[in-house]
């Protein structure tokens, strides 16, 4: 990214900024570099703010067609000195998230690790991947004094390897690089629509343990696999700019302030990460169990960290140069109490959806499930939620179960389902819960919205889900609103969706991790001090909002109609009486219709004005 020559010392006019795009034509094995002029502030900021503008120029009816580009983007703060400025964004039309008319929706997925920083340091802001390679291919981007270069190399030697083993092999070949790869699930893209992209971390390379970060949602690994692109290397020496005092102070605030306290461990004055969501959600009986139906029993407690700690050693570890240490990595505890082998990373989403929500609540049986999903390179949310549906179906149809007849708690058969899915041998699961439930004509308990599986927050508590434009909880921050505010009025929820929740996507432009909890003032200060972009909070908010509304417009372009913006029918028709909420159930059809009307009143006007 650079300013056009002779136009001053700041980026305040986005159209004077030029970003560096590497365009890769996989079919013809050509890679080229171009400087692209930013059209507006969202273009300059990057992430999905930029990629969705590009995707909007394409008419894509099939996610596996050559017309579907994969855009690998960074945010303006990726690779900067701002703590957690590490994010890489993968955007494309998703094979998983489809409208009622069957058209693929644009999706983005984000991940940390060090790949994004290496890409920026190599001089590349964005990679645009077009077409399909005729053989398994590796894209190698290298930084040099004369600028970046790109080469397409054979990748046959990587086929079939687990994600982290691919990364370790590539580390041997490209010692100064970091990597974005797909696993076996992405290689079997035709039958696994929620394959993820694994991103390397320094911790993985140093330890040899499976400690990837993930761009999990929406099947971006599937799109990569459909292009026969097995991995991307970004190789160059680390590049650190001079650390401004304002950024030093901001980083201290990020590492020690209230914004990240939830994610830090107790020894750093924190609450212990997302895993610690179990306890407060349990107070209200909001923890998903048995396909999103809390049972009000004590089985949820078996996955509390305090219950797991006696048998395992838990270490808080981190991404590159991050002081939050949000990774809660679980290791074997040997009989003498010492630390044994790494087992898995325990975050709330994967552990709930691969434990409590599928009836497996022995941590000794849970960690292998989490580890298996990671090794095969699948999105734990989509996989876990789809498997929960299968188990639920089998409970309801004991005489005619599907697949291997697995039921809640049946860990061995669940392992089988995961292995089959990752190996492309189980399209019923691999193509996601919407397609599966539609084919069975039993959709009310399929936990999906707009084709994308729900994360581990009950839809009964979140009428904001339908307006999430990417991942259900990371692109609309209303998943915790009911637990925190307790308000069930239409007025409250209209504001929660249209005035607050959507701004959660801000960091998906900037390149920051949401766990940094950077407030708007500090974000604006970071842009000014680190980048020379002096825009103030209001202008930043406007660009974020415009990007969000554009994403809604893109959904409309791909055939989403009002009836697509709804919740699973079970929420309306069979509310769970176990939820500890005075006014439960509050999401009636009448409530939702009124909410929908008011929310669209706001968004329709903005979509028209785009």
């Amino acid at each position, binding site marked *: 990214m650079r300013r056009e020559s002779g136009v001053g010392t700041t980026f305040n006019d986005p159209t004077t900024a030029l970003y560096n795009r590497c365009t890769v034509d996989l079919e013809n094995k050509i890679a080229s570099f171009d400087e692209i002029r930013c059209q507006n502030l969202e273009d300059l900021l990057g992430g999905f703010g930029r990629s969705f503008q590009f995707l909007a120029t394409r008419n894509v009816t099939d996610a596996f067609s050559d017309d579907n580009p994969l855009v690998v983007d960074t945010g303006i703060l990726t690779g900067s000195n701002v703590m957690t400025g590490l994010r890489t964004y993968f955007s494309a039309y998703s094979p998983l998230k489809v409208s009622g008319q069957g058209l693929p929706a644009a999706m983005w997925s984000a991940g940390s690790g060090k790949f994004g920083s290496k890409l920026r340091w190599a001089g590349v802001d964005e990679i645009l991947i077009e077409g399909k390679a005729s053989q398994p291919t590796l894209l190698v981007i290298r930084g040099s004094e004369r600028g970046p270069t790109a080469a397409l190399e054979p990748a046959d030697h990587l086929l079939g390897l687990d994600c982290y083993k691919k990364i370790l092999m590539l580390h041997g070949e490209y010692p100064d690089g970091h990597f974005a790869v797909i696993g076996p699930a992405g290689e079997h893209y035709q039958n696994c629509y929620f394959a993820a992209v694994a991103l390397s971390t320094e911790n993985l390379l140093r330890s040899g343990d499976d400690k990837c970060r993930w761009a999990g949602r929406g099947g971006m690994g599937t799109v990569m696999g459909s292009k026969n692109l097995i991995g991307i290397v970004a190789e160059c020496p680390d590049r650190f700019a001079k650390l401004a005092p304002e950024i030093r102070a901001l980083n201290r605030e990020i590492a020690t*302030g*209230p*914004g990240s*306290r*939830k*994610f830090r461990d*107790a020894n750093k*004055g924190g*609450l212990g990460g*997302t895993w*610690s*969501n179990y*306890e*407060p*959600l349990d*107070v209200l009986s909001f923890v998903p169990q048995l396909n999103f139906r809390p049972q009000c029993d004590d089985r949820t407690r078996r996955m509390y960290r305090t219950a797991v700690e006696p048998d395992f050693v838990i270490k808080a570890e981190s991404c590159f140069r991050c002081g939050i240490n*949000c990774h809660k990595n679980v290791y074997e505890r040997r009989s003498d109490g010492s630390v044994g082998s790494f087992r898995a990373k325990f*975050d*709330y*989403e994967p552990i709930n959806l691969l434990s409590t929500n599928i009836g497996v609540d022995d941590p000794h049986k849970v960690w292998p499930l989490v580890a298996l999903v990671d090794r095969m390179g699948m999105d734990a949310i989509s996989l876990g939620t789809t498997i929960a549906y299968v188990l639920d179906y089998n409970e309801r149809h004991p005489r005619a179960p599907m697949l291997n007849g697995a039921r809640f708690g049946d860990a061995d058969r669940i392992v089988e389902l995961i292995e089959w899915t990752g190996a492309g041998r189980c399209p019923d699961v691999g193509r996601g819960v919407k397609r599966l439930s539609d084919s069975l004509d039993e959709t009310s308990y399929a936990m999906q919205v707009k084709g994308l599986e729900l*994360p581990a*927050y009950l839809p009964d508590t979140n009428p904001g889900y339908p307006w999430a434009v990417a991942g259900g*909880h*990371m692109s609309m921050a209303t*998943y*915790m609103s009911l*637990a*925190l*505010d*307790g*308000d069930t009025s239409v007025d409250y929820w209209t504001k929660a969706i249209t005035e*607050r929740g959507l*701004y959660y996507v801000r960091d998906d432009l900037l390149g920051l991790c*949401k*766990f940094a*909890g*950077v*407030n*708007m*003032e*500090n974000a604006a200060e970071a842009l000014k001090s680190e980048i020379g972009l002096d825009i103030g*909070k209001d202008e930043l908010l406007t660009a974020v909002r415009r990007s969000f509304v554009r994403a809604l417009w893109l959904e409309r372009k791909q055939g989403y109609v009002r009836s697509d913006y709804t919740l699973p029918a079970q929420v309306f028709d069979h509310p769970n009486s176990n939820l500890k909420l*005075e006014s439960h159930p509050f999401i009636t059809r009448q409530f939702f219709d009124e909410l929908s009307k008011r929310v669209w009143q706001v968004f329709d006007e903005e979509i028209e004005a785009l």
Partner: protein
Amino acid sequence: MSVRIRLPALFADRIDGASTVKVQGQTVTDALKALAKLHPALRTLILGREGGVNPMMAVFLNNRQLGSNQLKSQVKSDDEIEIVPAIEGG
């Protein structure tokens, strides 16, 4: 006593970005109630239905987490309180 309350973005964004607020109070609960009075937009986040501190929030005094039975702890001048949500995703 005048104490400082530091707020995460969830709170700050509801009160035009203010991430640190000074209030008066003798105890932690007093200080939080003063914050809710000063900024009614934060009321439902800070206070639970029964008028005490919202059980879905975690409260820290000088970097030490307080249990629900410790919220009546006395504060001293220039003490620092933090209130953060106990639920956040990822």
